Each structure stands twice: as C-alpha cells, then as structure tokens.
C-alpha cells in the first residue's frame, strides 16, 4: 500500500514537472545577461541562425535585465500602470454591483429567477467576439472608445463573478438567515451582517478570478483601444519581447508576480470558490 502511494506521488511529481520546469526556466532566464541570452535563444527570438539551446541556469547570473527594465523602459511602467487602472476599477465595480445581484439570485425565490440564471450562464459562456460589434457600437455612441472606461464599464457588468458569488450565497444554511431575521434584522442588514461574511470565500475567489481575467485581457483592448499608450501590459508585453530580447524574461516575470502573489495568498478561498461553482444547483 505504502509503496504504491509512493509510485503515485512520484508519477504526479513527474507530471507536474510540465508546470514547474517551464516556470523555473523562465525565472532563471530572467537573470541572464544579454550576450548569453542571445546566444541561447537568439535563433528563435532574434532571428539568428542555428537552434535555440536549452540551458536552465545562467552561467553568469546578473540583475542587469531587471535594472534595464525598471530604470530604462518607461513604456513598461506606462503599460503596467494602465493594467492597474483597468483591473482595479473593474473589481471594485463588480464588488459593488455584482454582490447584491448575486445575493438576489442566490437567496430569493422569485418568478423568472430560473430564466434569469439561464441568461446569466449563456452570457457567461459567450466568447467576447459575439458581442464585439454591439459593444463597439454602444461604446462609440457614448464616445468611450479609446478610453480606459471602454474596458472598465463592460468589465464591471461581467456575469461570471455574479454566477460564482450567487453559488456562494445559496450555500449559506437557511437557518442562519432565519435566525438573523427573527432577531429583527432587515434584509439589507441580513445581507451585510450574515450574507457577505458567510460568502466571503466565494466573493474573494470571484475577485481573484476577476483579477486573473482582466490582468490577462487581450481582445477588449485590441478592439476598443487604438492608442497604444492606453494598452495594458498583457497586450503590450509581446512587443517588448521582439524589441528588447534581453528584458523579455524579466518583463514576463514582473508581469506574473502580482498574479502569483495574489494566487498564493488566496489559494484557499480560490479553491473553495471554484469548488462551489461546480456544484449542482
């Protein structure tokens, strides 16, 4: 029995190397000097002759790429800041508007609730391209194209966080809600004092998923933002790679850090939230 488990563990560790090896590789490459990096990867990234060489660890580790990226690439800062200016308002808006919506869908029985829930799910699985034209026309009418708001406003009304949070709300035991009502709490108070604290894992996990989603956004800025100065890092990063090969890995790592820290901090909540989203109604 013990031995068998050891084999399973070994197998899983082997399988997981598909994940940690690439990440380790990227982290290691980000400490590589320009010459060495071009020697190893120039064949792919800079159009040099020959073949890319896989070498995990840098021979001469250096902070040079980070120094150049952080002190010498103003474009990178602009895009990083753009990403922040787009992601955080979206999350705040989802919190203010999505949470009450999710409470209603998760806790109240009313006529049309099922249809509404169905509509939410349909909107949820629809790829961005389906609403691209209508979104574009609406934003044009409001003269919001080519502004941060073109990403923020549609993002706030995304249905996915409402879906996750409504699952979290409907998972609260009825007795708790009843008890609060008997104690004389009004609906709003029940929502604030019982609903939100009890569903906090779901809410946090919706926020983390939202962060990952909007930190990664590609299609929306591509369609709605013409001015490159407004682009988020997610869309701009591949350009850095082709312009300045020596900072490409460092830039990748810097972009990845906020997402990874958030993930590691909230992994417990995230798992609970994801798990709740899969449960049948």
């Amino acid at each position, binding site marked *: 029995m013990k031995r068998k*488990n050891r084999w*399973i*563990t070994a197998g*899983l560790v082997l*399988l*997981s190397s*598909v*994940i940690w090896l690439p*990440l380790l*590789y*990227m982290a290691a490459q980000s400490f590589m000097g320009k010459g060495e990096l071009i020697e190893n990867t120039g*064949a*792919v*990234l800079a159009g040099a002759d*020959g*073949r*890319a060489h*896989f070498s995990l660890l840098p021979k001469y580790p250096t902070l040079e790429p980070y120094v150049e990226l952080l002190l010498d690439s103003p474009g990178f800062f602009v895009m990083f800041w753009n990403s922040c200016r787009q992601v955080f308002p979206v999350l705040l808006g989802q919190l203010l508007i999505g949470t009450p919506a999710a409470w209603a869908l998760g806790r109240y029985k009313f006529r049309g609730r099922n249809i509404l829930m*169905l509509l939410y*799910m*349909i909107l*949820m*699985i*629809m*790829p*961005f*391209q*389906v*609403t691209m*034209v209508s979104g*574009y026309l609406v934003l044009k009418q409001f003269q919001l194209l080519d502004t941060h708001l073109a990403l923020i406003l549609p993002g706030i009304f995304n249905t*996915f966080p409402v879906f996750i949070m409504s699952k979290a709300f409907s998972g609260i035991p009825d007795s708790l809600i009843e008890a609060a009502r008997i104690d004389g709490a009004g609906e709003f108070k029940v929502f604030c004092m019982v609903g939100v604290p009890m569903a906090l894992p779901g809410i946090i996990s919706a926020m983390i998923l939202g962060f*990952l989603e909007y*930190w990664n956004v*590609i*299609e929306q800025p*591509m369609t709605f933002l013409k001015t490159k100065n407004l682009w988020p*890092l*997610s*869309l701009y*990063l*591949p350009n850095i*790679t082709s312009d300045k090969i020596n900072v*490409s890995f460092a830039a*990748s*790592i810097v*972009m*990845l850090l906020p*997402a*990874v820290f958030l*993930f590691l901090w909230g*992994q417990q909540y995230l*798992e609970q939230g*994801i*798990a*709740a*989203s*899969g*449960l*049948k109604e």
Partner: protein
Amino acid sequence: MDAVGVNFTGLDNYLTVIGKSSFQLAVSNTVRFIVTCIPLLLLLSLAVAVLISSITRLRELLKTIFLFPMAIPVASIVVLWRLVFDNHGFLNGFIERFHISPTDWMNGPSAFYVLVFSYLWKNTGYDMILWLAGLNEIPDSLYEAARMDGAGKKECFFHITLPLLRPTVAMIAVLSLVNSFKVFREAYLIAGDYPHKSIYMLQHLFNNWFVKLDIQKMSAASVMMAAAASLIIIGVHLTHEKKK
C-alpha cells in the same frame, strides 16, 4: 438589413456567411477544438484529482503546482511556448537527438495540438479542483460499506465514484467550455491574425471581419454563435432538471 439599416434583406446575410469557406473552416476548427479538448481535459483532470486525493505526502504542494498555471498571464508564458515550439526551438532540438526529423510546429497541422497542449496546461488544475469538490461530496461510509462487502479499489471507483460524480460533469464541462474560448489569447499571441489554418478559429474570423468593418457578416455570425451557446446551456439545464 444592409449596413445603414435601410433595406431588409431577409436571410441573405446568413446565407452569405454560411457559404463562406473561411466561416466553415473557423466553425469546424472551433468545434474540433472543443470536442478534442474538453473530453481530454475532463479525463486528465479527473485522473489527477483521483490520484492526488489518494496520497498524503506532498499533496498540498502538488495541488498548488497543478493549479499554478491559471495564475500565469498568457503574455508571460507565450515567449516560452515560442521557444519550445519554434522551428529552431527546443522541441525540435530535443527530437533531433532521436533522429526524428524536425517540424515547424506552429506552421503545420501540429499547431492545433500545440494549442490543445496549452489549453490542458492552463486548465487541468482548475478542473482538478472541481473534481476534488465532487469527490469530497461522496460520503466515506459508502466506500467502507463496499469494502465490507469485499469490493476492491477498482469496483469502488467504477460503481461508487464515477456514478456519483455524474451530476457534476455537466457543470465542469460548461466551465471548461468557457475557458476553451480563451485559448484564442494564446493562439493570437503566438501566431497573430492569420495563424496556420488548423487553428484558424471563429475568434480569428471575427477579428478579421471587424478590421474590415464587415458589420453585416459579423452580426449574422454573432447571432448564430449566440444561438449555439444558448442551445448548449439550455440543453445542460434540461438534463439537470430531468435528474432532479
């Protein structure tokens, strides 16, 4: 209607769109991608979930590792995928050692499988968590009772685990479908507007139509896509209702 919305043209736009070979290609690629990826992802993640729940050592660490890719921004990882799958990349260098002739992975039919790989890479952890939640719902007493009756591990898995996981399958498939549309990001960042035709998806087609301001075609195609999405969700919903 025509672009300015004056003349009613009936179903003409729909017929034009359906007749377009680029539309047929994009639809068939998208469908092929979905029917390849989702079963593969469900099986792989179920296997990982079952195996991971059977071990105790390193369990939390492995869970974190498998879930990790969902936190990795696409833009960060594509530089690595390019290094691996490029004609002059690592994969070709690796297989040449075994005297297999190299191929240009992103510019051939294999591009499809590169995309499948990157989808599995990113989403296995997410689905693993969903499966683990389903597994947790199964009471231990069922397994104990079965073991008393002399059932082995295999019987337990096929007669208890699988049937009891069935209600969660539909929801996991829907969430996997949502994520499958996001693979366009990888495809776009690696291969651009016009990738190899094996990964020319509906999303590429929509983008290219958008650039050309082909509003009529886009609207017709959007309606069809929205209808398909609605059918899927309603189908899932009805099968759920039936089981209740």
